[in-house]
Structure formats: C-alpha cells, structure tokens
C-alpha cells in the first residue's frame, strides 16, 4: 500500500468520524441537522447516479423515479397493509402461520368513500386480536425489493439502446410514473401526498439518551448509516470486478465482450444496484419527512442530482457525494433573498439558475468536475514521476 492510498484512508476515516460526532454540536440546531440529513440523502443519490452514469456510462434521467418507487412502496405498504392475528374474512388476506397479512381496500378520495374493510371486520374479529401497522423495516424491505425489480425491468429494456435513446426513455419513464402517481388519487392521494410514519414511531434511546419520534438525531444516524453502507457497498463494487467490468463496458462494449465480459449481465446489474440504493434512500427520506408527494419526481430534482454529481466529479463516487453535500449546503446558504436598489432578487430561484449555469460550465471546461481533480491530484500525483522514473531505469539498464 503506497503513501497516497494510506493518506486517502486517513482522510476518509477522519471524515467519517467527523460525521459521526457532528450531532454533538449540531443538536441544538434542528435546521442544521435537517440540512445534514437532506445532504446525505442527495449524496446517496448523486453517488449512485455516478456509479450508473460515470462508471457504467448509462446516462439515465430516471434515477429519481427509482427513489420514488422505493418511497411509495413503503408508504403504500404503511397505508394498505396490516398484520393481524385473526382473519378478517372481509379484506384480501394471506395467512402465514397464525399471522394474517391483510390488504386494505383503497377508501378513495374522488368518488364516494368506500368503507374500510378492516374497520367493518373488527366487529367479527375475536376480542384481543392484534392489528399492527407494518414496521418501518418491512417498508424498507418492500421499497428495496420494488426498486430492484424496477431497476431490473428498466435495465433489461434499455439494454440495447444507445445513450441518446436511453436518456429519452428514462426521462419519459420518470414522467409517466409521476403521471400515474398524480392520477391514481384514490390509491396515492395524488398531489396531497401519502403520509408516512416517523422512522422510530415510538421513539428510540441512543447513547443512553431518549429521543422522541420528532427528534432529528435518530434520522441523522439512520441516513448517515445508509449513506455509509451504500458508499461502502458501491466502493467495494467499484473496486472489484464489477467496477472493472462496468467501466470496460462504458469504454467499449464490443471489446469488453470480446475479452469475455458478460456485458448484458453487468449492464442490468448496475441498474439493479443503483436503483436499489436510490429506493432505500427514498424510503428513509420519506419516513423522515413524514410525507411523500409526486413532486419528488419533478425534473428539478433529477437536475439537482445530476448537477451535484457532475460538479463534484462524475467518475468518482466520493467526489459525487462530496459535491452533493457541498451543493446542498450552498443551496441553503444562498437562500436569502436581497434587494439591490429597486430590484429584489428572489434567491430561491436564482440559486437554481446559478447551479444550472455552473453545471453547463463545468461540463464545458472541467469534464471531471470541480472536486474530483483535487482528489486525483493527491492520489495520482506520483504516477507521472513513476512513469518517468521507470523509463529512466529501463533506459539505464543494459539491453538484454
């Protein structure tokens, strides 16, 4: 292990420790805590998008759709699924060794409300029967599974498409999903959104302290944990054969196949992996915010994730994540509107204009992003010297 690599580990470990202990200082500022949680959320999305687009070269504009699929799967499960200890005989249900998984009927918003089958069944159910909302982890599991499923479907479908078509298709996929969620009001509540329970409905005790359902510290650690886990998984994948192969596929599919790489499998797989991570982030964020609406799917959200990944550095997970965290904080810092003489500048919109311009300029003049070159400068600064030194050594050696 060379010095640079070690330096990277040291900086990384220090960074993680800093993030772990940060709540000690931040805890008095719920606003900063909220910012931190949101920035982790975006960091997960930006880094997983960079795995998809930067490493594998699959320019998908549908990444937020996978996130929404995760969040909505969990939210719908919380709404329509109950675990009971007795049969209702009215709802659709599935018996699993003494426990019934009950599917509630949609009560409807637009048309006349239909009665809740479980409420009606309560009269006939034995006394003492327990009715339970599915726990958060079950929703998380459902969200992840659905994310993986849709990642698989989209991945298999767009496999043969060239980059332009892939971009067109995924942008359309995202829009269609938003249309479906907005339109199926009776199930999804449309624009008014689905409420989601807090991550820890009953509160939780951490480090000997009690935190209520609304406290920011538990979701901070939940999101940070997800961030670290997904970074660890993606980092491991990126440095293993998976990463090697998807980058080879990005560079030249045909050549990769001729060298024995199963192109189809890895292309689908990278969709599945990134979709799953995005979906998991969506579930946690949904529970943290407490409500999920179709507006998380607007193009702006996708644009932000892309801007974060590109400005940070598309071809590096860490750069994309750092870019996301920095930009999320900058978005907040630039929030304050101000007046210049008679003109009032509405910064809530102008900051987006600024990041749009920055995105274009970065692409035009710094394809590798603004953060990534710093990292490579540290990690690769001796490659040039090494090449020169090796060449000199080879020249000095007598010809064999």
């Amino acid at each position, binding site marked *: 292990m060379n010095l640079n690599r070690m330096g990277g580990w040291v900086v990384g470990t220090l960074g993680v420790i800093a993030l772990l202990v940060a709540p000690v200082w931040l805890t008095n500022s719920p606003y900063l805590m909220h910012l931190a949680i949101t920035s982790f959320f975006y960091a997960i999305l930006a880094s997983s998008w960079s795995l998809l687009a930067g490493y594998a070269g699959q320019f998908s504009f549908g990444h937020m759709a996978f996130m929404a699929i995760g969040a909505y799967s969990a939210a719908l499960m919380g709404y329509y699924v109950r675990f009971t200890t007795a049969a209702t005989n009215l709802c659709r249900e599935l018996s699993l060794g003494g426990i019934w998984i009950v599917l509630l009927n949609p009560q409807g918003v637009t048309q006349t409300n239909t009665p809740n089958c479980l409420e009606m069944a309560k009269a006939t159910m034995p006394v003492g029967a327990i009715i339970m909302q599915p726990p958060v982890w079950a929703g998380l599991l459902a969200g992840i599974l659905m994310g993986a499923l849709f990642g698989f479907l989209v991945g298999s479908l767009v496999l043969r498409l060239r980059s332009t078509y892939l971009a067109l298709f995924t942008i359309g996929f995202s829009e269609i999903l938003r249309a*479906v969620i907005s339109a199926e009001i009776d199930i999804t509540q449309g624009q008014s959104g689905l409420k989601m329970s807090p991550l820890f409905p009953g509160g939780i005790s951490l480090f000997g302290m009690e935190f209520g359902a609304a406290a920011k510290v538990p979701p901070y650690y939940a999101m940070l944990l997800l961030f670290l886990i997904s970074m660890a998984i993606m980092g491991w994948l990126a440095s293993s054969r998976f990463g090697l192969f998807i980058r080879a596929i990005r560079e030249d599919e045909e050549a990769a196949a001729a060298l024995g790489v199963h192109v189809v499998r890895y292309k689908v797989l990278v969709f599945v992996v990134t979709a799953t991570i995005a979906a998991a982030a969506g579930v946690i964020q949904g529970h943290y915010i407490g409500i999920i609406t179709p507006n998380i799917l607007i193009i702006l959200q996708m644009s932000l994730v892309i801007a974060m990944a590109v400005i940070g550095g598309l071809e590096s997970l860490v750069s994309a994540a750092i870019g996301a965290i920095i930009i999320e904080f900058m978005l907040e810092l630039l929030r304050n509107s101000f007046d210049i003489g008679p003109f009032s500048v509405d910064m809530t919109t102008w900051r987006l204009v600024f990041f749009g311009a920055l995105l274009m300029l970065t692409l035009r003049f710094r394809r590798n992003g603004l953060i990534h070159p710093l990292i490579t400068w540290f990690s690769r600064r001796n490659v040039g010297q090494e090449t020169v030194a090796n060449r000199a050594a080879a020249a000095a050696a007598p010809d064999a």
Partner: protein
Amino acid sequence: MEHGAIFGWTMLWIIFWGIVGGIVTPRVYERRNLDVSQARLGGTAIGAATGPIGLIPLWVFSPTLSSRWITAAGLLIVAILAVAFARADPNNLCVTNGGFVASQLTNGIVIGIIYSLMALGLTLIYSILGVVSFAHGEFYMIGGMVVYYMSVSALFENANPLVWLLGAAVVTFLMGVAFERMFLRVMNTGQIERPKEYAILVTFGLAFFLQYATQALVGANPVKTQRFFPFPNLDIPSQESAWLIKTTSGNIRLFDAVSIPNPRFTAAAIAVILLLMLMWFLYKTWTGKALRAVSQDQQAAAVAGINPNTMNTLAFGMGAMLAGLSGATLVQVFAWLPQVGIPASARAFVIIVLGGMGSLPGAFLGGLLVGLVEAAGTGCIPDTTRAAAYIPAYGMVILTLTLLLKPTGFFGREL
C-alpha cells in the same frame, strides 16, 4: 365502464399474441435466411391483429413482410380495440356520438400539427448535428413567454400578434445560435471526449438553466394571452340553418358536428403556414438546400464547399426557433408556466423516435399520430380527470412500443 372485462380480456388476448408473434417470427425468418428487419414488427402486428389464425400461415409460408401488410394489421388492431371498447362501454360518447368522435379526431389533427412543428425543430437539429436537444421544451416555453410579455408590454400591446410571433422567433433563434456557438461547436474540434454524452448533459443543463432563469425573471404564475385572431361571425349557408360553418368569436363549428376552439384553430393555421414556409426554405433556398445536403452526407457537403460549422449553428438556431414558434402559437391555448416545456419536450422526443430520428416527414406524421392518440385517449376514457393526467403516458406507451418493435421508427435512417 359497464363490461370492462370484455375490453380487458381483448387487450390481454392482443398483447399475448403480439408477444408470441414478436418473439417467434424473427426466429422463424432467421432460420429460413430471410430478411429479419421487419420480422419483429410484422410478427407482433399480425399476431396481435389475428392471433393464431394469422400467425400460423405466416410461419408456414413466411412471406416478405411489406409495410402494407403491417399497416393493415395495425388498422385491424385499432378496429378490434374499437369494437371491444364499444361492446364494453356502450354508453360512452365515443360510441354513441359520431359528431363527438369527428370533433375529437379533428382536434387531434389540429393539435398534432403544432406538435409536428415543434418536433420538426428537434429533428432538424438531430439530422444536422447528430444531437438531441434536451432543452427543446425550454425554447418552446420561452417562445410562449416572449409572446405573452410582448402582449402585455406598453410597446407592443397593440401590435399585430404576428409581431409577437416574430419577436418569439428572433429571441429563440438568437438563444439557440448563442448556445450552439458557446457549447456545441467544441464537439467538432475534437476537444471534447465522448461528444454524445457531453451533448446530452449540456443540453439537459441548458434546460435546467433556462427554466429557472425564466422563473426567476417572470415568476411562476400561470399566464395566458387572449385569442390572437377572433373569428368573424359566419353562418354558412344561412343564419337559420348554418349546417356548413358556424362561428362565434371563440369557436368554429363545421357540419354541425365538429367544433374547434378558436385558439387551437388559429394556432394550427399559423403552424401550417410556418410549415409551408419551412418547406419553402428547405427546398427552394440555397441555404435550405445546403442544410439538407449536410444532413444527408456531411462529407459530400464539405467537398462541395459548404461550411459545416455555419450549418450547425443555423440548424440549432432554427430548431430552437421552431420550438419557440410552436410555443408562441400555443400560449393562447394553454396556461403558460416556466415548467410547461417538460411535457412538451417529452412529447417531441416520442414523435421523433416514432417518425425516425432525423426524418422530416417522419416528424410530421409522428406529430399527427401522437395528436390523434392523445385526442382518442382523453376523449374516450370515461374518467376525465384521470384521462387528462395520463396524457403524457400515451406518448410513453408509443415510445416503448417503438423502441421494442422498430427502433428506427417510420422513416428511420439508423438507430
């Protein structure tokens, strides 16, 4: 729907046999060393239209699949679906009221013409630069904004609406030219690695930038202009029985059945004039010929002395202008917001893929078809709010089917 099951089962039957035909037919053709380029589309169409009745002879005799066969099968599918729909929902307006159907179809064509205008801009850009502009919808939005703000400005308030349109054209053209010069020209110099991906991201970035720059400048409240050209009151043949044409200032009624709102009608009329002007430009002027030459063979055009850089800039500017003009005509139809370009550009993507990337007639035909499908979808689905919300979905279904069955579209030159 009273008997929704009929329609549902018909759909399932069609989808099932479509898939069977689409999977098996190419294999049969490949095994017999026949041309497989049409086999998947043809197999799917014939399977979906006729089920095993058509598929078995198809597999046994494996005739050459001409586009005529495929079109016939496509029409048959539409007919079967129409009959199933009529059986399933006999009280639907689309079944009972011929006038309503005619009206929907006409309105579909009317709106389709405007979609075509916008898609033509996108396809023009693609055929010359080889780039799909993800900011196309934003030029559309800006075209409408320019018209609205000219129409309320003290200076142009009383000007002829054509002046507003001219303003929209000039603004979007110049923006397109400036963007091409600043961000896309470098693609030809070899300075940019992987130019295709660069183009996708940088035009996407432009969309993001333009959308919020507009919002920052004018706010996010929906705006809409008055009718550009109200109809004169006409009653033909006579006032008592105006069965041929009857107009009020906001509506025109043809044959006592087909009714078209004024804004849509004028928008389509302007679009038709613009299309004719575009055709004149492309086919009769030197510059137009040069553009077509570049789109057909870059090298030969360069050999003939045509500067490709100039043509790239011009094509992008004109593409942006066409989008801007279609927005400019539609700002009297729809409420206008900075976000209005997103569904519009998604639709334009669908159209150019359906028509075949880079094909001008394809874009026109695709626009009409998408207009018709949307009209049928919105007009016939019983639940109107839901139908309206699903408008973008129809386009996506078309896009998915095109990509699966015939990725080159109607007149595609290449995938």
